[in-house]
């Protein structure tokens, strides 16, 4: 898994690519927490390059979203496709998150 972050004004863009599994999903949480402790309210996770996510990855998304929401923030998802999208759909998490096609569309809602 590779993680790149970028500040986009009202939000931080976190680009996740590769495979997010039991061995590495904590890295996504850590990357987001670094921004949350610095006062970031909104995180946009760009998942266009994500090929695989297991339930450990889903736990990380839920955990980050719950932390942001508890402080009036949000985790927005974009670029979700393929197996990761199927996994979000099967577990009905798709309805709990705001999901956009692109990061620009997500940013425009903030």
């Amino acid at each position: 898994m590779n993680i790149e972050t970028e500040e986009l004004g009202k939000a931080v863009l976190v680009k996740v690519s590769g495979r997010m599994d039991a061995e590495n999903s904590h890295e996504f949480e850590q990357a987001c927490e670094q921004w949350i402790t610095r006062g970031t309210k909104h995180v946009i996770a760009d998942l266009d390059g994500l090929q695989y996510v297991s339930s450990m990855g889903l736990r990380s998304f839920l955990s980050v979203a719950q932390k942001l929401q508890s402080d009036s923030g949000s985790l927005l998802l974009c670029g979700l496709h393929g197996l990761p999208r199927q996994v979000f759909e099967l577990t009905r998490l798709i309805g709990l998150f705001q999901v956009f096609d692109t990061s620009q569309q997500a940013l425009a809602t903030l």
Partner: protein
Amino acid sequence: MDSAARRLTLPASVESVALFRNFVRSGAVAAEVPADELEKLDLVLEEILVNIARYAYPAGNGAAEVAFAPDGPGKLYVEISDWGNDFNPLDVEPPDFSRGLAERPIGGLGVFLVRSLVSNIAYRREEDRNVLSFGFPGPGE
């Protein structure tokens, strides 16, 4: 499981998941399981093996065995065993989908995913062994 089955035994740990995955993938490719199903097979193996490491061996030491055999064209029969605590993953309650984001429990999703992606999943306790068996791919959506 017949004599054509292949077996691999390794420590039940997160670090072993990749080795088990490559082992079963080789069998899935040989059995002509469709290529676009292989990552779902990875997912099923990861979920089951992580559960074994967490619940069958809470103290952290123990082995898991993965065995598979071809089960007709494009299909694989898989058995995953451990020698840990009596643990039937099929008894795990399904996630409560009625809850919103703030209240959605973090957990319980792995077993639910496994059940969604395989066919004929069954658990049995065989002397001191937990055995989970299933067919792959599942019935499809």
